[in-house]
């Protein structure tokens, strides 16, 4: 059940890392928090004249007890620039939770699951890792960035999961791509991933070769976020699918 709410920003911090302005915004939205799943997203409305369309942002963390959702975003254009100027206490309009989220219903205690994130694909894996840990699943997290991005890796360090990092410039962890870190003889029951298309494609090839089920979270430009406008299609092997309602999480074999 999705809700369209006016919600208060509880905290809103930001960190400049190598020229990237990364923001962490925590919003009090109990109706959205209460039935949110890892991998789902919300639409954040800008309510600013000439910028009409809401921005889709994935859920980084959810606190159902306190009714809080946490969003992590990077200032990439005019819309996120406007968002970045909202102070704590500001009231925002938010619609969510939206999308299907990761399917973890079949994961069992003792299973070994790999989470693979690239860039801004890392934040949504945090809530996913939390939920999997709660279920007793053994979680290995692999994160890749262009450059060292401590603000996005720090939260995973306190989770007691195996964490491996790759950076393209070698400023942290392995120098190269995150997919370089994946084992040759994996024992994973499932791979769950979010990140840029080239990474998802390489990961899908890996998962296919090792015969491991793999779910990937993709992104596409959206207008409504609820399946009405048919604007956010993703090309899959079975034709166009809507990122907002049929995704954003797809079986990797459907896409690549």
């Amino acid at each position, binding site marked *: *059940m*999705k809700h*369209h709410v006016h919600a208060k920003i509880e905290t809103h911090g930001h960190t400049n890392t190598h020229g990237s302005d990364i923001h962490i915004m925590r919003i009090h939205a109990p109706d959205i928090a209460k039935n949110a799943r890892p991998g789902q997203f919300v639409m954040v*409305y800008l309510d600013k*004249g*000439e*910028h*009409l*369309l*809401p921005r889709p942002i994935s859920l980084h963390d959810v606190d159902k007890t306190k009714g809080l959702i946490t969003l992590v975003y990077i200032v990439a254009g005019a*819309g996120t620039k406007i968002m970045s100027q909202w102070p704590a206490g500001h009231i925002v*309009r938010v*619609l969510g939770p939206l999308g299907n989220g990761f399917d973890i219903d079949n994961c069992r205690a003792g299973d070994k699951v790999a989470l693979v994130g690239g860039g801004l694909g890392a934040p949504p894996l945090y809530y996913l890792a939390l939920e999997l840990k709660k279920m007793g699943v053994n979680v290995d997290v692999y994160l890749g960035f262009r450059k060292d991005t401590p603000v996005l890796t720090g939260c995973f360090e306190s989770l007691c999961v195996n964490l491996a990092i790759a950076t393209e410039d070698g400023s942290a962890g392995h120098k190269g791509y995150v997919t370089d870190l994946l084992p040759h003889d994996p024992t994973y029951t499932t791979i769950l991933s979010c990140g840029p298309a080239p990474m998802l494609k390489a990961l899908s090839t890996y998962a296919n070769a090792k015969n491991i089920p793999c779910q990937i979270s993709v992104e*596409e*430009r*959206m*207008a*409504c976020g*609820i*399946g*009405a*406008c*048919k*604007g*956010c*299609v*993703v*090309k899959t092997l079975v*034709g*166009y699918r809507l990122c907002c309602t049929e995704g954003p999480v797809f079986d990797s074999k459907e896409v690549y």
Partner: protein
Amino acid sequence: MKKLNVSLAGVNLKNPVVTASGTFGSGMEYSQLIDLNRLGGITVKGVSHEPWDGNPPHRVAETYGGMLNAIGLQNPSAKAFIDDELPFLRKYDTKIIVNLCGRTVEDLVAVTEDFSGVDIDLYELNISCPNVAGTPIIGTDPTEAKKATKAVVARANAPVIVKLTPNVTNIADIAKACEEGGAAGISLINSVLGMKIDIRKKKPLLGNIMGGLSGPAIKPIALRMVYQVAKAVNIPILGMGGIMTGEDAIEFIMAGATAVAVGTANFVNPRATLDILEGIETFMNEENITDINQLRGIIL
């Protein structure tokens, strides 16, 4: 007691606010967010005789005060709509307006016949999609527009209004041709053909290169065209194009529209239709207007 109901092409709408095709799915998508019973009508996403895949991504882009879309009328076919979506919509006390699409007059006839025996309140004949090969040709030529209208009206089991494209030299001529063809009303405007370039990637942003511009950026154009058509024809008008507020809707009604359709505003605010309806009522209270029909065409 204010009177809000209007008669659009012989169909009694409880109020003049309906949704614009392609922005509201088949209503189901918004039913958790607003009470669909409060709408004058719901114009569903365009349907064709055969399923259409639509255009490659990207299909949408924000522009200053507007947005571009190049969906390409992706739809699962009229038959799938009738079987899977219409039963849900029927549970609500609102009029159902079905947008009919086709690349040729033959296509349009076929989709109209798909609805024989199906109870629909009103048809909106779409001869104006900027994103589908064929329809702009029908919608920009008075002879073709008249031919298509005649063919569909002859087979339709409910009144037919014709949705026009603004991408023409003289919209009044097209509207008159549709009236001669038997249209029960005119719906306008569809989106304005535009484009956007991704200067970093050095290529057009939309997969279809060009797309339809909608939203408040096009409102003055839409209002002007509603005014021109209202002066040219004697059939009712469903006015649309960038309506965001009750005041915007009042402008269209004053320019001659019997009812108004809300499109892009649904993306900006899922409850835009209801806010617009409430805005119309507020205006009527402030101006001591008892019947919305008193305002229609008062500037003509």
